[in-house]
């Protein structure tokens, strides 16, 4: 099962990088959103795939096993991903707002035209001390 997911993760990365390399701000934002999912799936797959059994200790049992018969899914990557999902969402929201404000201020969503902080003429070198 890891093989399929590895291929899908590869697809996610290829797609998001392609979008991030665009000069259109919105495509870049979508690329950010995709990459978040790609990374989450990457961590998930790297922690190995177990079908169906959630990492929950059964009623009556005192502990659970992550290896051998009756193993539960690996809880560690899940804990990592759970916060990662929320944080990448918060980041996405922030970046969306940032892009929106940048669009409002510069009147364009083409990154090649957003040159306020790095103007085309190179910065002056300091003279003296």
């Amino acid at each position: 099962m890891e093989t399929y997911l590895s291929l899908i993760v590869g697809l996610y990365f290829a797609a998001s990088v392609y979008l991030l390399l665009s000069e259109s701000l919105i495509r870049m934002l979508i690329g950010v959103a995709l990459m978040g999912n790609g990374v989450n799936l990457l961590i998930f797959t790297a922690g190995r795939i177990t079908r169906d059994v959630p990492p929950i200790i059964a009623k009556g049992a005192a502990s659970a096993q992550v290896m051998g018969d009756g193993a539960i899914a690996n809880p560690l990557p899940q804990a990592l991903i759970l916060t990662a999902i929320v944080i990448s969402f918060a980041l996405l929201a922030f970046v969306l707002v940032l892009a929106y404000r940048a669009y409002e201020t510069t009147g364009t969503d083409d990154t090649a035209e957003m040159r306020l902080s790095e103007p085309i003429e190179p910065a002056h070198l300091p003279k003296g001390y």
Partner: protein
Amino acid sequence: MIGYAVLTPFIAALFAPVLVRLFGHWAAWILALVPAFICYRLVDYIPAIAKGERVLESHAWLDGFGINYSFLVDGLSLTFAFLIAGIGFFIVLYSGGYLKGHKHLGRFLATLLAFMGSMLGLVLADNLITLFVFWEATSITSFLLIGFDHERMASRRSALQALIITGLGGLVMLAGFALMGIIGGTFELSELFTKSDVIKGNELYTAVFWLVMAGAFTKSAQVPFHSWLANAMEAPTPVSAYLHSATMVKAGVYLIMRTTPILGGTDLWETVLPIVGGATLIIGTILAVRDTDMKLMLAYTTVASLGLLVMMLGVGSDRAIEGAVLYLIAHSFFKGALFMVVGTVDHEAGTRQITKLGGLRSAMPITALAAGLAALSMCGLPPFLGFLAKESIYHALSHGGVFEWSLAITAIIGNALMFGVAASIAIRPFMGRWIDPPKSVHEGSLMLVLGPVVLSLIGLVSALSLSFMQPHFFAPMISAVAGREVPIDLHLWGGVNTALVLSVITVGLGVAVFIMMPSLRKSFDQLLTFIGWGPDKGFDQAITGLTWFAGRFTNALQTGEIRTYMRTTFLITALALLVPMFVLNIWPQAPEFPKMRPWEIGVFLFLTLGVLQVVLARTRLTAIVSIGVQGIAVALTFMMFGAPDLSFTQFMVETLSVVILALVLTRLRLMRIDRRSVGAGIIDGSIALGVGVGMASLLMLVTQGPLDLRLSEFFSTHSYAIAHGRNIVNVILVDFRALDTLGEITVVLIAGVSALALIRVRPSGDSTPGAKDLIQSDPSTKEASS
């Protein structure tokens, strides 16, 4: 105890500005108590040191690395500490008088005290790393002192030059210390003294020598690093008087003295040091004679004196060390006094150009007296300490082969030129015809004259009270430098011998130099103008070149096009993923394709199609919907493979994402077509493909390898037993790794606050100008509206 004494100046520095605010320049009297107190504490050590003992004190700092806050009091460090604290006492008072009413007097005194503390720590440190820390602290505090008058560019330049030269030297020295510590197996100087043979025998000895000497030569302004010392004259005179008499510039000499028992005595040592020192002596004196600014004249003679000291330490015989030690002490007193004299003249008369001053003795009799006494010591005339020093130097140099004799001739020339300079400074401004100075002259205040008078008198008294000074200061210090007990026998009158004859020759030449001073000055000036290039100019060229290079480099890297940045980043990502696999020839094994359940096939198809649809979307609605589709497919994937928590979270996040995306994207236009050219599309596509293939291969490699499940095992076993929770994921989040979660919710909160601020905070009037208006308007409005 000594470790705390070293810290007192730093503590006093904290209170200096407050005290100055309360008491004005009288605060200097209070702050001068600090060095006085340190001297008082140091007195306790004199009996033990006189007996040839060595006092160690150590506080653990970074224990595991052999780095301790440790101190070593012996003849060398004790005498140095006395010089630093003793002269420091008078300098603090002098500063109070010199900068009376200056608005930054508090800041000045604070920096001065911090410098004093750094210097004390430097000379008293036993651990090499402690020494290095204090060494760099002197670089930083001296930077602040030299650049005190920071509104002038010349000051800033000098300060920066001093910092760069001495700071770089210090870093190189640190490398030397590290090597020395590794070879010797300890960072404690007191233990390294016994490891001398190990270090000298090591094949890396040459490297250690050059690295450590780089620190010493830069700090002690040896040729070609001498330019910072003269430029440091931009500082207020109290700084010059302190830094260039007993402290900063002597730190390099101190380091050479300290390492003599460890690194000294080799051919390398006995060749390099005399040559560098001799060259510095001659160049320093030539530059001193050339100048007419008395402060600069003194500064260049300081360079020359440092050269003489390095030269003598390079010779390394017992008498040579004796000469160096005596000269160092004598120099600290007469140079400190003369700098303060020049400062007082400058302060009272308004100029320090030697050609514009004359006949001041009637107006400033006490200052004139101090100048005279100090100059006599500098000229090396009996019965002053300078005379004793010079006798020892000549004695050491006149008993040897051709090399020693050539050094002796160098010393005679250097000393004769210094004689001329000293005589000029003591005689020209005070004697002869009265020349009207720019200000009406009167004697300096008590704070201004106390230092010069006392210091110049010490130069006389210490030579006369030889029976006390020799066993208590000179002998222990000489023994400490030599690293063993050295019998010494000093006399003011040792009968007629070679050394005395050389002294007489020096005095004769010196008088001639004094008389011929104006013509000498002219010819030296012509010579130097003819050469036209010096390290000082070189420094400017180096800095200009560096700025030019940095500017070009930055402009080349920072094109301002985000696409270039992104392409570089991801290209390197792809290479970092793929190149190791090619080079090491590690590839994933032929993958297995296990049988999938029908719904798994369905979900994976959804995933693939969703992602592809996102990339190919032409309208924003399609894009939003496709994002939703792939997100829900991800959620289903989590659900199928035992992660219900993730699945729920993903569902909710996708819902909210779509809402927020819709809210933002309705306000932005999505270009119907991706405006990439075919070429750009191919480049981007290749990079994207590279990253994708790299990630997929990496992940296959990882999943085909073994998995360390110890952590998961721990959580699964203890989740219910310790943390009373059956949902292991939740227990990890809120209990086992709660601190991580605390950090993560902080990120969420910060993202929320920042987004809110971006939306809500607007420039007044809520007029949002377009890009063209902004680019045309001036930078200040640009700042305000963006």
